């Protein structure tokens, strides 16, 4: 039976996680705009607050005040549910992310598996958004997203399995503990797994160069073309939260998580995570979008065989 204290505890944790997600997403949106601007020799947002830090807050307020427009031919229920199904898994993923030695909501013994499962739920929301909008661009965007995420899931999971094999555990804290003093990335097979992971993860969160589900030049905005106001903001928050999560997972699995000298664990964890986020932003503002056939070919013909090969090599190394 749940006591009152348990309920309060759950509420407190929920508020902390949601607050962190909101602040982190807004910070990442601002940061992405700044990084893109400086790569293009611009300033980016400068007017609202110091160097435009409050720009995202202003945007959020604007989106909150905007009218919510429902397309006439939309499948209402599916259309309404879609943004929640995109956001909820990204919030749930925070449960197993270890921010510090004891700074984890719940150290599940199947943590990595839990994350793999959640990353696939997101695609259902995107597909629902595409279908529910009753718009050909949205539908194509949703379809592409489903195809892409299903393809890239396989190399992603295979590279996560390699890490779990090394640590002989699926628990995120045990994976971090197994890397004490010697990060996973320093093993050659793990470095390969990291490259596969980061490519697949970029595809998983629909970022450039794998952003065909929301390719502006072809599909307007893809699956969220018909969304406005706070529903659109939820997709946006979901996207940036996912960006944070994939970077956090990469930091945990390959870069020793919260471990590091002098500074407290949470600081090290955030430094590593935001470092990876910066690399992803750097990649985003450098490369053009892949063609849809190249994209599928790359997942099935390159990444999947490479990860299977890597899996076999890692298994052989462990048994040797």
């Amino acid at each position: 039976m749940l006591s009152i204290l348990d309920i309060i505890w759950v509420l407190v944790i929920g508020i902390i996680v949601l607050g962190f997600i909101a602040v982190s997403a807004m910070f990442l949106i601002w940061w992405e705009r700044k990084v893109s601007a400086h790569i293009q020799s611009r300033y980016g947002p400068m007017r609202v607050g110091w160097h435009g830090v409050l720009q995202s807050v202003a945007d959020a307020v604007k989106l909150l005040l905007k009218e919510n427009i429902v397309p006439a031919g939309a499948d209402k229920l599916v259309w309404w549910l879609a943004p929640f199904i995109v956001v909820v898994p990204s919030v749930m993923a925070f449960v197993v992310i270890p921010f510090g030695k004891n700074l984890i909501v719940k150290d599940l013994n199947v943590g990595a598996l839990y994350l793999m499962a959640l990353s696939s739920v997101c695609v259902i929301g995107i597909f629902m958004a595409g279908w529910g909008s009753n718009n050909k661009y949205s539908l194509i965007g949703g379809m592409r997203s489903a195809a892409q995420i299903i393809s890239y899931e396989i190399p992603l999971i295979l590279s996560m399995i390699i890490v779990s094999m090394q640590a002989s555990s699926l628990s995120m804290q045990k994976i971090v503990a197994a890397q004490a003093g010697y990060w996973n990335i320093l093993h050659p097979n793990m470095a390969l797994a990291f490259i596969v992971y980061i490519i697949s993860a970029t595809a998983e969160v629909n970022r450039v160069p794998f952003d065909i589900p929301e390719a502006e030049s072809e599909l307007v905005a893809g699956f969220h073309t018909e969304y406005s106001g706070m529903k659109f903001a939820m997709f946006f928050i979901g996207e940036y939260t996912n960006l944070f999560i994939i970077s956090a997972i990469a930091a945990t699995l390959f870069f020793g998580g919260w471990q590091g000298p002098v500074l407290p664990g949470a600081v090290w964890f955030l430094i590593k995570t935001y470092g990876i986020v910066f690399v992803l932003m750097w990649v985003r503002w450098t490369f053009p979008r892949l063609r849809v056939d190249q994209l599928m070919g790359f997942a099935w013909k390159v990444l999947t065989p490479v990860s299977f090969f890597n899996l076999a090599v890692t298994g052989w190394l462990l048994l040797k």
Partner: protein
Amino acid sequence: MIKLAKNFVVGTWSLIKGLAVTIKYFFRPTVTLQYPTEKQPMSECYRGLVGLRPEKCIVCYQCVKICPTACLAITHKQEDKKKTLETFKYNMELCCFCGLCQQVCPTSAIIMTNIYEISVYDRKKLDINLLDMKKYDEWTNTTIK
């Protein structure tokens, strides 16, 4: 097989080169000018709003005659042999900023300033008396050299 390997190496190298270019630009200073607070300095020969140095004007009417759009209109009063300006009407609505008035002026009394922020909300404000110097403040804080 060799072609594939070559493709892989060349492709990877090109990706790294691309990343190097963007990170180089990331650390370079930006080129944006924060417009209302920072302003682009205009060149000496920029033809902006027409300005007048009334103390130099000898009321020769050359500028009025040469003006292709007839946007200038002068009235004067004559005391003995000395002419003094009464009004110097300049209709900016008609002006084509050709600079002929500046070229023809024998004493360089009429000049093209480098004032370029000349949009107004009221059409009446386009018709200005150049003798009324205060009116320039409605467009800009810069004074005529």
